[in-house]
C-alpha cells in the first residue's frame, strides 16, 4: 500500500527545502516545517517531508530496517536506492531510538572535495533549550540548544566531527514537525 506523498510535490518540496536551507544557515534554531505529508510508517511526518525533498535516484540512503510499506513508498516517490553500509551512504536515516554509527566512520569528504560527505537525518523526541551552547557561522551570538532522544554521547562525537572541519558530516535533527540544522561548521560546548 503506497503512502500519498505531498499534495503538491513541486511546491511543497520547495517549501521544505527553504526551511532546510534556513535551518543549516542558522544552525540549532528549530524551525517548523511549513507543510507535512502523511507520515511514512515508522517515521515522523517531518522526516518523511525531508526524504521526499532530498532523495532521488542520484543519491543513496542507508537506514536500519524500515517497514516494507515505507520502502515501497520511497521507491515509488523518490526512486530510492539503498546503500549496503552506512559508510557508503550519501544520506543516513536514523529513526527515533536507532543506534548512531560512529560519526568518525562515515563519509566525511576529502581535503579537495569535503562536500563528498554524508548527511544524517536524525530523529529526536523534542527540542529543549538545555544541553549545549553553540556558535560558529550562522550564529549572531552563541545559542543554547538541546534535544531529548539523542543517541548517547552524541555531543562528544559531534565535537570530534567538528574538529575535522572542513571535513565531516552534517546532521538534520528532526522532531515530529520541526527541524534543526547542525552543519559541520557548528562549534558546540557541553553544559
Amino acid at each position: 500500500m503506497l503512502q500519498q506523498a505531498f499534495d503538491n510535490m513541486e511546491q511543497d518540496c520547495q517549501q521544505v527545502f527553504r526551511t532546510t536551507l534556513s535551518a543549516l544557515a542558522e544552525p540549532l534554531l528549530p524551525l517548523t516545517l511549513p507543510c507535512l505529508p502523511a507520515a511514512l510508517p515508522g517515521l515522523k511526518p517531518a522526516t518523511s517531508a525531508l526524504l521526499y525533498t532530498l532523495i532521488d535516484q542520484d543519491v543513496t540512503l542507508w537506514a536500519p530496517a524500515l517497514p516494507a510499506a515505507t520502502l515501497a513508498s520511497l521507491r515509488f516517490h523518490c526512486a530510492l536506492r539503498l546503500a549496503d553500509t552506512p559508510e557508503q551512504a550519501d544520506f543516513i536515516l536514523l529513526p527515533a531510538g536507532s543506534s548512531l554509527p560512529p560519526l568518525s566512520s562515515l563519509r566525511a569528504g576529502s581535503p579537495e572535495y569535503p562536500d563528498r560527505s554524508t548527511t544524517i537525518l536524525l530523529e529526536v523526541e523534542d527540542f529543549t533549550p538545555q544541553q549545549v551552547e553553540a556558535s560558529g557561522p550562522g550564529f549572531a551570538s552563541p545559542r543554547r540548544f538541546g534535544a531529548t532522544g539523542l543517541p548517547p554521547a552524541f555531543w562528544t562525537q559531534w565535537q570530534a566531527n567538528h574538529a575535522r572541519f572542513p571535513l565531516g558530516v552534517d546532521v538534520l535533527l528532526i522532531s515530529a514537525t520541526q527541524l534543526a540544522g547542525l552543519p559541520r561548521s557548528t562549534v558546540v560546548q557541553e553544559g
Partner: protein
Amino acid sequence: MTETCHSQWQYNFAFLDENTKRMLRRALLKAVAIPGYQVPFGSREMPLPYGWGTGGIQLTASIIGQDDVLKVIDQGADDTTNAVNIRRFFARVTSVATTSSTAAASLIQSRHRIPETPLRPGQIMVFQVPEPEALRTLEASEVETRKLHAHQEYGLMHVKLYEDIARFGHIATSYDYPVMVNQRYLSSPSPIPKFDNPKLHMSPALLLFGAGREKRLYAIPPHTRVESLAFEDHPFTVQRWEQACALCGSHDSYLDEIITDDAGARMFVCSDTDYCQQQQESKA
C-alpha cells in the same frame, strides 16, 4: 512529442526540472555547511547562453517559491536590459511578485553589486559569478587550486597583492577583491567593487554564489566572518569619492561617473538606483 516537451516547460515552476532542482538544492546545503568552499554541481545544460547569468538563474530557480518577492539588479540598477530580462523571465515562469525595493525583496539576484540599503535577516542574495575560483589567475589547474584550498595555502594571493603594493604603492585590485570566509576558505566575492566587501562580513542575510559555466556554487551563511585580504602596513580600504551623488546628495553610496552631454560633461550618481530614489524621496 513537441507537445509533451512544451507542456513540461510550461508546468515546471521556475523552469528547471525537479531532478535538477534537487541536485542544486543538495549542493546548496553542502555549500552552507562549508562556508566559502566551491561545491561542484552536475552537468545538466541550461538552454541559455553563458554570460547571461546562468549560474545565478539556476540558483534562483532552485530556491524560489510562490511567497517570494524577487529583485534583480545589474550594476546596482533594476532597469538595465539584463536585470529586466531576468526579472521578467522569473515573473513569467513562476508568477512571483517582483520589486525594485531592496527592503521589500525576499530574494535578490545580483550582478556586480550589493544594495546600499542594509540587508535584513531572512533575505537571500544570489550572486552571478563568472569565475568562482579566486586563485584562477594565479594557477590555471583546477587540480592544483583544489590542493591549495585543501592545505589553506594562500601565499600566492598575498604575493600577488604585495606585488601590487610594490608597483603602485597600493593594492590596485578594486573589483572581485579576495576574501577569507570563516577564516578558512579564500573566496571570490564575485565582481562586486571592493566597496561592497565589508557588507559581506556578518551579513544578516544568506549569500549564495552561482557560476554557470564552471558549474560551481558556494555560500556565505548569515553572521559569518568575512575578511578582505590585507597587510599590517597596508590595511584594506574601500573606494571613496570627494563628490556626493548629484541626484540624491548621498555621501555614503558607491558612485558611477556618467557622461551627461555631447561635450563630455560628467557627473557622479549612485550606482544603486533604488537607494538613490529612496534618498531623493526622503528629501523631497
